[in-house]
């Protein structure tokens, strides 16, 4: 039986990430306090690639700047991730990690 979790909540319908401007110059990488895969599991991974309307971000050539911009500014249905939650350094490391990930192999249903 397909799982249906319906009581409360919100949306994550990420749309225009690929259309955002890409900066030519990458900012320097500052010290990051958290590992990007842990940040992914604690935040993005709950939705992206596993919830309808929230596309897989890994392995699609997403630019670092697109990740940073959407995380900080939000998108229709997607919550904002402020600096009070994810530091600039952590976000930058996460964005580079996402950009380098291969396309995840989905388990057979």
């Amino acid at each position: 039986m397909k799982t249906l979790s319906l009581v409360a909540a919100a949306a994550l319908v990420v749309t225009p990430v690929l259309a955002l401007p890409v900066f030519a110059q990458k900012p320097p990488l500052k010290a990051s306090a958290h590992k990007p895969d842990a940040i992914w599991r604690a935040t993005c991974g709950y939705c992206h690639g596993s919830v309808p309307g929230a596309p897989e971000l890994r392995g699609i050539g997403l630019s670092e700047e697109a990740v940073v911009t959407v995380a900080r500014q939000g998108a229709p249905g997607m919550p904002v991730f402020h600096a009070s939650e994810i530091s600039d350094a952590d976000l930058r490391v996460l964005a580079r990690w996402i950009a380098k990930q291969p396309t995840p192999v989905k388990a057979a249903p």
Partner: protein
Amino acid sequence: MADILLPPGTSPADFRSFLKSCEAAVGAEWVKSAPQDVLPYGHVAMPFDDDDHMPSAAICPSSIEEVKAVVAIANRLRVPLWPTSTGRNIGYGSSSVADRGTVVLDLRRMNRITDFDPELGTVVVEPGVTYHQLQEFIKTTGYDFWLDFPGPGPIVSPIGNTLERGHGVTPYGDHFAHSCGFEVLLSDGTLFRTGLGGVADTTSWQAFRYGYGPTLDGIFTQSNFGIVTKMGLWLMPAPAAHKTVIAHWPDPSDIVRLTDTVRGLRLDGTIQTEGVLGNAGIFLAATRRKAEVYDGPGAIPQEMAVAELKKMGLGAWNYVFTLYGRPDRVEADWQEARARLEAAGATLIPDAKDEQQINELTLKSFALFNWIGGGGLTWCAPVSPMRGTDMQRQLELARSITDRHGVDFMVGTAFGERAALNVMPLTYDRADKAQMARVRACYTEMVDAMAGAGFGMYRTSVGFMDQVASLHGQANLDINRRIKRALDPSGIIAPGKSGIRV
């Protein structure tokens, strides 16, 4: 600063002074006043323009000392503050403010778990702690406790949801009822603890919530009388066994007999948890896009939604609940629930799964917003007594209003023993201003119509707080104002929250 949004009643000079003083208190990095930093705090899903409820700045303290310093500055300069935990009250206003220009007090950096008692199953958390963080912490202790969380659980906080009196779907689903002990900062700098937290070297702050004398915790929920900076929380011992069931009924009119049957099962404790009752509309929206199933104008016809659900092996009403306890108890409860639900016309699916009911964090409920797209949402949440005839009356009234405004009728109900919270997501595309206007008009009419029929609201969004508050009578408004004037005479904490101002 002519073009800069100012806090209400604050001069440009005082605002500059406020920001500069806050920089000294929390560090310049954590005073957000540049548009690119502030505008995201005003993003909303509710049917208002972001600008309608936009803050003028955000201050991000990391400790109680820093919060006290900011509150002192705000009090001195009469700058209103809007405290948020993670700011993800999505559909209820997120981190936007009731009165435009109010400064967000972003407590996300206060994310410490300050106490854990494995014998009593309690923790104390700060506002920025998320359910994900708390669950990861519990894993590291080696103890087996479950959490009850709302739909966006991984990325929201126990304090935020509890202070909004949010609900989840396990036996600990009434979050305020499972909190125990607040630490509260008042606008004059007084820091105090509710319950037994004031006793020197207290042993029982998280064990006994009432304390001595008046029990004050409740006045700090859905209110603006103080800033809750810590909260005790009870943890649910992991059950030895559990069984999730879907009971579904074929016809919308079955709401009467199903409600009356579930009430009996809830009152005698056979079903210990609220679970969730979803109509065809909300189940359909959780799995499909509207454009795939309906291309006509306005709301999807109810009979079409029900027909689609039948193709999925579900019904007009679908009640997802879990039985918890020792294996023999779960089996006995299952046999009892099955007999009574089937006698009431239900078809049962006995081995379902709902992550939220078994301590698995998920954001699958976010799929709801894939139904239309565009990120628009507000929750209309009238309360009904657990009587079938009242449920039918309320829900038919609600559907007549959503149909008239061309808004899809969806409802996810939390079944208490005596009250049902009929939480209705009104979804729309924020890029379509006409849709947004329809949803806003629908909500406004719904609130008034429900009040006219004797039904109140469980909770509402920032944009509708004054309207909902006004329906509770002048005496209620006055008593809240008197408390506000006593505890926050300058009115600097969250003006307009739940319609309360000095």
